[in-house]
């Protein structure tokens, strides 16, 4: 009985080993044969995101022009790498990756194969771009996590409101940044005791939907439907008399925005 098991085990081991030996080079070869560039026909510029940007970064890294992370977001690092590449290859230096630069780069980085190099990052299945890049608001950089906090607050405070109303609430949070009456950082504003009902009752920890995130993105880039408001309240539920005394600006959905 025991012998039988041992025999079986040995057989399985040998079979696996053989399979590995047989498959491994096969895998690599098939990878090399079937790997096609993930470039698309679109022109890539600073600000572009996507699989083709990964491809661009991977190839630039392969030939030593790019030193940053392969994250699929065409930022300043990628921009300088492209310009350097264009300079070295005697092309027009504009930092854009159009058909000419693309062709030159594919030719210059022959042998580039993200699969053979075991770089899962370049896999087409994980093509989606990683986290939202940081953005800047009024000359100050706001971290990706602070942007998530704002989206959470916007979702907790105003889901179900019209889209402009949600952008307006994100704008109110950002308007507070420069106002002397409020803390000068995003977490300080959001977690100020009594400032937001969604923080007080824990609704801020609901996962925000795509609409709330989009609203924050719009507000970060300067869209302000609240016209410079720093307070808002829901007249149906507001208990504070003081908030009614603030100079009102306008009403969007259920909220009155004021200064």
């Amino acid at each position, binding site marked *: 009985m025991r012998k039988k098991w041992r025999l079986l085990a040995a057989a399985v081991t040998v079979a696996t080993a053989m399979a590995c030996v047989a498959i491994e080079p096969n895998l690599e070869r098939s990878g090399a044969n079937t790997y096609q560039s993930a470039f698309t026909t679109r022109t890539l*510029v*600073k600000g572009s*995101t996507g699989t083709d940007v990964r491809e661009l970064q991977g190839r630039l890294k392969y030939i030593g022009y790019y*030193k940053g992370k392969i994250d699929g977001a065409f930022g300043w690092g990628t921009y*300088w790498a492209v310009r350097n590449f264009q300079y070295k290859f005697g092309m027009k230096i504009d930092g854009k990756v159009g058909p000419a630069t693309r062709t030159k780069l594919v030719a210059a980085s022959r042998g580039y194969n993200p699969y053979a190099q075991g770089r899962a990052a370049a896999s087409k299945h994980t093509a989606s771009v990683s986290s939202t890049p940081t*953005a800047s608001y009024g000359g100050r950089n706001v971290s990706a996590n602070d942007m998530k906090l704002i989206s959470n607050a916007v979702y907790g405070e105003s889901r179900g409101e019209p889209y402009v109303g949600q952008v307006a609430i994100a704008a109110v949070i950002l308007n507070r940044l420069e106002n002397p009456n409020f803390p000068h950082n995003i977490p300080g504003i959001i977690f100020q005791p009594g400032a937001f009902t969604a923080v007080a009752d824990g609704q801020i920890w609901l996962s925000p939907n795509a609409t709330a995130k*989009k609203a924050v993105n719009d507000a970060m880039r300067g869209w302000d439907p609240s*016209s410079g408001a720093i307070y808002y309240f829901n007249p149906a539920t507001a208990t*504070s008399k003081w*908030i009614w005394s603030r100079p009102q600006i306008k009403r969007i959905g259920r909220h009155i925005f004021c200064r």
Partner: protein
Amino acid sequence: MFSRITSFVVVLALVVAGFWGYREHREKQALLVKAENQYQRAFHTLSDNMNLLQDELGKSLAVNSKLQATNSLTEVWRLSAQARSDVGELPLSLMPFNNTMNFLNDVSNFSYQVAVHNEGNKPLTDDQWNTLNQMYTRSKNLEKQLSALQSAVISKNLRWMDAELALAQTDKKTDNVIVDGFKSMEKQVKSEKPLTFGPTVTGLRTRNATDENKLTGNPVDADGAAQAAANFLGLPNTQGVVAQKNGSGTPYSSYSVTAKLPQDGQVYLTVTAKGGHITNYMDNRAVGDPRIDLDQAGTKALAYLKSKGITGNTIIRTDQYDNVGVFEIVPSTNGVLIYPERTTVKVALDTGSVVGLVAQDYAFNQSPNRRIPAAKLTEAQARKFVSPKVSIQETNRAIIQDELNREQFCYEFVGIMDNDTYKIYISAVDGKEVGVEKLKM
């Protein structure tokens, strides 16, 4: 027999419920104490910081040498910022406390300007000394009230949780010692005459204020605002365009305008009351999968500005989210980038149509015959003010606004250090560093 079992079960249930209730109560108490302690910590730290703040203000008055004054004033700057942050941790957002916060902010801005940004290391001028002296007296008064309140809180065991409750129920008349203490502080600061500052601190204060005198054109009424919006959108008439005057709280008086576009639905605009300029335009139509790339979208954004009669020919920032491309655009005249006249254009990547515009900076700062001052420094001379560790990739000439809202003619050096990209602005007139920006994306 049966009733015995029942009564046993009932008694057991009561005991269990009682025990459970007791435990819940204790846990709740523990949480309340924890929350209370957080408030107490912020409050007592605030009092401490105010105490130190007026010490340091006094010290900076007592010395005459620039070096020592700078040391004290740097402390003043730090402590006033810290005090503001302490206030932010207290549940005071439901009561008026803005005058006190403004006072702390002024102290902070003033000490920063005098100590950190002082030009030429001069000792305090008489005006500065007087302002500082007023700040000292006022902060002393504030501190006196605050420490009296602090003693009351300690000796009478006053709880911030009660103050918070009292603030939440404003329909009733409150007689909470903490709330009253802060209210009387605020009242006192409010009764004082506003402090006088030199132009630099006033500039800091009005950094984001928008000066309506800079707008061109005549005041428009609601019909005029609707007409301006219709013209902007290319609608034949103002049918379906609704303009509503915004309330008095806006930074500049304006109208909120809504209109319906035949294919996109509702759009939203902000129109200035003076001149009928469009400062904000939003079209929130659903955007489908991208069919054009960012490069093409950028061209569309520039063409759009041209069609609206807005100058702007250089894209300074591009980014993309949710199938839209967003472009920040400035005009470049004779090779000089005019940053104060910035616009932001949002292009839908499905059809390439423009679905948003921010033109507030442009409306307030554009001037068709802007004079570019003569540069007193050459590019090579200005470059010497940039660290040799930065490898400069690009140089431009630019007009930017400094932190006091003044326009400055600068050399813009775009360079890399440690894989990060920086924009460094050196004044072309006197070689002073006007600003540094670390670029992300």
